[in-house]
């Protein structure tokens, strides 16, 4: 009897041991890579933002306190990048969502080729930003001037859109919209398909016009999707780098606070430039942490908004 309990408890503890072993064994590969590339660099990065870390060879990395953060906020190129990123993001949110929603309405109406249309509008989204940027560089530099000349639009036939920082930002918005609208469209499509048909029919029988049905039945039911799409466009526009790099490479230059700076450099690119061109990696790191905090704020607002919406429902 005594013997039996003994073997039983030892087999249970053996089972526990195996379970623990399996737990760590299964977790190890993912956890190792995760720590290697996200957690450890994140920690190092926070520390380095308070040092004089530079991209050039240096003897020692010394603690300098908040210096990089103060310097970052006094750097005209960073302030300019913040302003221009906000403008770009705002225009992008509006344009992407208007176009995506209109396309979604088109491809959910009763059309024969709707699956082909959906795929067609979605296609640009699977092409990488670097490649997209070069395609559009060709369009803005070669195609648009010729087309503008043919239709007699002299401003565009005489000026390159990428040659002036204001129109170049607009060009960035156009390309991002082209890239992103099909993707956001599909989220709206999913939402539109979930609107119950009988509800729309009931409204029609009650004498509601097409516009009234759209305004009072469809829109309220699709509203939760707007939270998702608005924040998706917000975060993705804010983080834009690839198209920026290949379409304008941050240029052309413009004057800001009495300094000549690159006129279409968005925040992500400004962080890159600070380390790769100015070789001030510690300041780039400080800027990146500010960038991170802004994104965390966006996420928290999104969670708050969706939670609130759930409560209301």
């Amino acid at each position: 009897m005594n013997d039996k309990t003994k073997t039983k408890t030892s087999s249970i503890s053996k089972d526990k041991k195996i379970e623990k072993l399996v737990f760590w064994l299964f977790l190890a590969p993912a956890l190792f890579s995760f720590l290697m590339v996200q957690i450890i660099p994140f920690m190092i990065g926070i520390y380095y933002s308070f040092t004089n870390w530079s991209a050039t060879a240096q003897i020692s990395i010394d603690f300098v306190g908040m210096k990089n953060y103060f310097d970052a906020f006094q750097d005209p190129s960073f302030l300019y990048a913040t302003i221009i990123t906000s403008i770009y993001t705002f225009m992008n949110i509006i344009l992407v969502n208007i176009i995506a929603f209109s396309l979604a309405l088109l491809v959910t109406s009763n059309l024969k080729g709707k699956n082909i249309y959906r795929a067609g509008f979605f296609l640009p989204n699977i092409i990488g930003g670097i490649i997209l940027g070069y395609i559009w560089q060709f369009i803005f530099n070669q195609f648009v001037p010729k087309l503008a000349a043919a239709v007699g639009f002299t401003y565009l036939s005489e000026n390159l859109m990428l040659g002036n920082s204001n129109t170049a930002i607009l060009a960035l918005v156009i390309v991002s919209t082209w890239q992103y609208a099909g993707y956001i469209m599909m989220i709206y499509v999913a939402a539109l398909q979930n609107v119950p048909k009988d509800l729309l029919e009931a409204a029609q029988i009650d004498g509601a016009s097409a516009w009234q049905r759209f305004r009072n039945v469809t829109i309220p039911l699709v509203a939760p999707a707007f939270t998702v799409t608005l924040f998706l466009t917000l975060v993705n526009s804010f983080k834009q780098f690839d198209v920026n790099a290949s379409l304008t490479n941050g240029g052309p230059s413009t004057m800001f606070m009495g300094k000549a700076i690159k006129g279409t450099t968005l925040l992500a690119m400004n962080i890159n430039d600070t380390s790769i061109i100015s070789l001030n990696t510690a300041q780039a790191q400080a800027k990146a942490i500010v960038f991170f905090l802004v994104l965390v704020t966006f996420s928290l607002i999104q969670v708050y908004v969706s939670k609130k919406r759930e409560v209301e429902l």
Partner: protein
Amino acid sequence: MFKNANNKIIARNISEVMTFTVMIMFLVPLFLVLINAAKTNNEIISAPLSLPTDWSVLIKNITTIWSNPNLRYSQALVNSFVITTFSLMGITIFSAMAAWVLLRTKTKLSTAILMLFIAAMVIPFQVVMFPLVKWFGIFQSITGIQMLRSYTGIIIAYIGFGSSLSIFMFHGFMKSIPHEIEEAAYVDGCGKFKTFFLIVLPILKPIYVTILILNGIWIWNDFLLPMLVLGKGTPVQTLPLAVNNFAGAFLVSWDLMMTAILMALVPIIVFFLAAQKHIIKGMVEGSVK
């Protein structure tokens, strides 16, 4: 009544034609790449809108690009393919394994680890990219394992960055698998390994496809991570890096540039046409979660 039905058909045809036209206009940039890849540079500059007169120029341009020493297209294609494939294998299997033990082990530690993986999704690449390169440098000087400019380093990086979302999605999906299936397998004498690889893994197939697509398209198109971990102009270059290098030197020769773009587009577009339903569904699911 009859007239009304007739009007409806006409209205539908009009919107069919309209949508079709909008789509064609939407895709004009891609047609422009195709037609201009089949021209000489002079033809492009004088008439970027016209159709090519001689399609054999396309073949000539493709051969030029294929053997161009700046672009090293075939090598970049193989590199992109190898890096994407191995990263995807790592991400899906390791994330599924991790998600499974994190779900089935109910301890504070496992919850904390899961939370850490999920919380890391909000970390933008910009915050970790420079320290990552520094850390990889330190790591390779300590262990002797080549991390920078190597397949090993970039594949580990993709597994690490891909794991957060993948574990989150696997974990969510696994919650819906009844525990009884695994218990039955366990009673039948299946060990943990057998239970996972023979019972759980096959059930994961639908979510597996979604995770493969989400990560695959990201990795294939990614630019910043390979630029930092592999470096520009080093022996191992991915397709986006190669096109970027090429553009640095050849942006004035639009004929070659258009051909290089066309050749970089072909693999991903073929993949899209072959699996577009899965791709669209997968990418949309990934966003909403």
